[in-house]
């Protein structure tokens, strides 16, 4: 491994700007760090270069731990967005600077300078001053200068930021060529996905200080794991679909989806589907569609962009698909689908604005995120509205680009086990924290909810998220929920392992702690810290939650009894912290659940029909 980062964290004034990033870049690989501004990608690059220290974690270059080695001795080449050329030196002097530092002989310096200028196609420019060069040429000089001392790693911080489109493309090609020729490990930071696609062997997408996903460009585009990556890499429509044992459906319509192993397909639940604009088929009528029909729509806007035509199609209210958002806007209520069509498609079916069309879906990709949408649940509609307006919930939903619906259930008032919900609860059920919280949560779980979010009256986004599960059956799903949530909230994740006694158990406890961390990292891409505590679980959690401001607990359980038996004291008096409960029945109790699913599936389709 050429570069290895291990749980690197950097804080500015307490807030993490780089949050637990672990990454490996192979020898000779071109790695692109992609993210919006403020995502921490530049800070991470500077940390690799040694210009910024890290608060936690380790940095290895070529197998050597350089965490505490100064930038001067790390032997990396760095290229800045604003070139940072020495303006009082000529091009030749600039390039030779690193060699002069190393007291290389003049003849050898000259040879190396020639070599580098040839590499970046600037032969004969030796005696120019940087101010006499164009922006593109200056950046070439900067690249040559960064390579002069034969660094083992080349780092580029938004190198094309200050250049116009045409020169950008030219320079991009030059950098790719240089990288191929020298086979030098390269990390480039950019916010431009097109640039990332064009250059990268592998892309890492960052947001809010976290490295969300890494992968080959085509893989990331076709099979993103998170909403952010789905919408940041190219355009995407996010839709709510139903996962059933028989496949993915929009209402009653089955659609073709790529198989994703992380999605739990045995359980009937709501999922988030990514529909790329080019996977949408438009036709004059339902019968003319070659793919599965998901609804009717009206063309709102057509933009000609050359090879492709971009359309915005408003979904009719009767559509089977529920659109939550597109990458263009975060308005959850806005049911406008982004569509692109090729010239060929345009000729086959010419369209004009205000025309009605039938919409079909060629292929979708289901995100393996367990948090699809939020449902505010209450006994009265006023109470439900209050939850919807909770600032924590609105902020979270906006960040996750999803929607909040309301659900009025009378059964919730007394948590009457005999009174069942009118229909299955889908998405994350949200209830306020009050006296009966535990009973209400139990009731919601019994009625199909998989996750319940309990919000106290006044709470903001957490700075610390504590993770705990009652037993190993709940581990995987709890970690999945935690990972999904923490991608959208810049908080620190801490897993609390709590064991009743000391003695021999300690060793087992430590091992399970390490297992949890490894699993979080390997399967869910979640970096979390671990803490081991001894005592009674609910008491210990209460103690941890009461110290410090703005905390959140993610608690996984595998049977409803656990909630009332072991954790009741957590809910007895509402604190100032929010709790996300994750409930997945363990395998033993699942057999009874199975029979329910068919009934539920029927119910879901009925509901969909009712919405038509």
């Amino acid at each position, binding site marked *: 491994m050429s570069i290895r980062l291990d749980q690197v964290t950097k804080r500015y004034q307490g807030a993490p700007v780089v949050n637990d990033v672990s990454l490996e870049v192979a020898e000779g690989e071109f790695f692109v760090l992609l993210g919006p501004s403020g995502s921490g990608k530049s800070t991470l690059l500077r940390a690799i270069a040694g210009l910024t220290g890290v608060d936690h974690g380790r940095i290895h270059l070529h197998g050597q731990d350089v965490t505490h080695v100064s930038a*001067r001795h790390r032997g990396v*080449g760095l290229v800045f967005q604003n070139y940072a050329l020495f303006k009082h030196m000529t091009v030749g002097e600039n390039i030779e600077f*690193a060699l002069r*530092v190393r007291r290389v002989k003049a003849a050898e310096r000259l040879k190396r300078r020639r070599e580098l200028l040839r590499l970046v196609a600037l032969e004969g420019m030796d005696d120019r001053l940087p101010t006499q060069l164009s922006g593109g040429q200056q950046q070439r000089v900067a690249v040559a200068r960064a390579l002069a001392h034969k660094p083992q790693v080349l780092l580029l911080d938004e190198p094309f930021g200050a250049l116009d489109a045409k020169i950008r493309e030219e320079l991009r090609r030059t950098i790719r060529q240089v990288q191929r020729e020298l086979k030098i490990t390269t990390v480039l930071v950019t916010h431009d996905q097109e640039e990332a696609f064009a250059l990268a062997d592998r892309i890492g997408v960052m947001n809010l200080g976290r490295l969300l996903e890494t992968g080959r460009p085509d893989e990331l585009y076709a099979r993103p794991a998170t909403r952010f990556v789905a919408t940041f890499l190219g355009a995407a429509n996010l839709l709510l679909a139903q996962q059933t044992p028989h496949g993915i459906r929009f209402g009653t319509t089955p659609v073709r989806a790529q198989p994703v192993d992380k999605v739990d397909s045995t359980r009937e639940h709501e999922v988030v589907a990514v529909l790329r604009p080019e996977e949408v088929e438009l036709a004059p009528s339902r019968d003319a569609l070659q793919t599965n029909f998901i609804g009717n729509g009206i063309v709102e806007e057509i933009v000609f962009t050359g090879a492709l035509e971009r359309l915005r199609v408003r979904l009719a209210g009767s559509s089977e698909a529920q659109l939550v958002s597109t990458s263009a806007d975060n308005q959850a209520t806005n049911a406008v689908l982004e569509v692109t069509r090729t010239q060929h498609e345009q000729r086959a079916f010419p369209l004009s604005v205000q025309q009605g069309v039938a919409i079909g879906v060629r292929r979708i990709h289901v995100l393996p995120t367990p948090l699809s949408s939020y449902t505010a649940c209450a006994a009265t509609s006023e109470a439900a509205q209050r939850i919807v307006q909770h600032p924590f919930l609105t902020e979270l939903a906006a960040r996750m680009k999803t929607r909040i619906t309301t659900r009025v259930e009378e059964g919730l008032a007394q948590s009457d086990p005999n009174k069942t919900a009118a229909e299955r609860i889908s998405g994350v059920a949200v209830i306020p924290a009050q006296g009966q919280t535990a009973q209400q949560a139990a009731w919601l779980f019994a009625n199909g909810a998989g996750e319940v979010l309990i919000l106290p009256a006044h709470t903001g986004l957490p700075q610390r998220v504590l993770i705990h599960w009652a037993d190993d059956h709940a581990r995987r799903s709890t970690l999945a929920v935690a990972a999904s949530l923490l991608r959208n909230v810049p908080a620190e994740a801490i897993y609390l392992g709590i064991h009743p006694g000391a003695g021999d158990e300690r060793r087992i406890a430590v091992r399970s702690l390490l297992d949890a961390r490894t699993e979080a990292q390997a399967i869910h891409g979640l970096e979390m810290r671990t803490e081991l505590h001894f005592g009674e679980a609910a008491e210990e959690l209460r103690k941890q939650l009461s110290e410090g401001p703005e905390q959140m607990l993610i608690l996984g359980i595998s049977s409803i009894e656990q909630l009332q038996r072991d954790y009741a004291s957590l809910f007895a008096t509402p604190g100032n912290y929010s709790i996300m409960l994750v409930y997945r029945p363990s395998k033993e109790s699942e057999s009874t659940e199975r029979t329910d699913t068919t009934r539920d599936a029927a119910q879901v389709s009925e509901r969909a029909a009712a919405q038509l």
Partner: protein
Amino acid sequence: MAGGPSRELLAELATRPGRDTLTSTLVKGAFITVSLLFLAAMLFAPLITVFAAAFEKGYEAYFEAFKDSDTLAAIRLTLTVAAIVVPLNTIFGIAAAWALGKFEFRGKSMLITLIDLPIAVSPVISGLIYVLLFGTQGWFGLWLQEHDISIIYAVPGIVLATLFVTFPYVARELLPLMQQLGNDEEEAAITMGAGGLMTFFHVTLPKIRWGLVYGVILCNARAMGEFGAVSVVSGHIRGLTTTMPLHVEILYNEYNFVAAFAVASLLTLLAVVTLVVKTLVEWRTGYRKR
């Protein structure tokens, strides 16, 4: 790195339409006239008066004035003080500007304000501070007397007072420059393996040299010309603790006008020369760059 638009740009601007209407020409003319008149009244007239008074009784009387040993001592003292103060304040100024421009710390804005203190405070007060500290009645007065060290009414006092008064010039000139230029080039140098000194002399210093030259010139001009603060601490001992400005006053009070204005003309000349040197240096480097 001389400021202002380039010659090409100015030429291009002049060709743009809508430049020369009648009113714009009139307004332009009026502004230039007013500025020139103001300059003539406030700047050129006193300058000419100085030289006119100095040469009132002919060249011989003028040069006779410089043969006086007290005058020569005053010139020597002024140059000595400047030779000590300017390098010290250059180093302090760079250090202060560096610290304030490149790092973030608590009380930074407070410190920036404090740097301006010597300009804000009346020079007489600046002098009095030192009298209060080192004078016979001052805090350290007794101790200094016991050890037979004289600061007030001696050269060290003059140097200290001048140091205090001229401190802000270099720092003030460099601070905005350092903030504006940023750290990228230094960081680039460091990643290429350059050490602190190498980075400073090969990267930072060339970057800030024009600001530095300007700051040093201002600092030097003030160091040579300072009257108020020096007057308080010097004690006006003829031939020992009188600098040129003080000597001018003494001569003037003795109705020795020719000698007084002769020394004054020398001071003025020093100022004019430094400004010419600065312009020359700027012009030459500008020429080389083009």
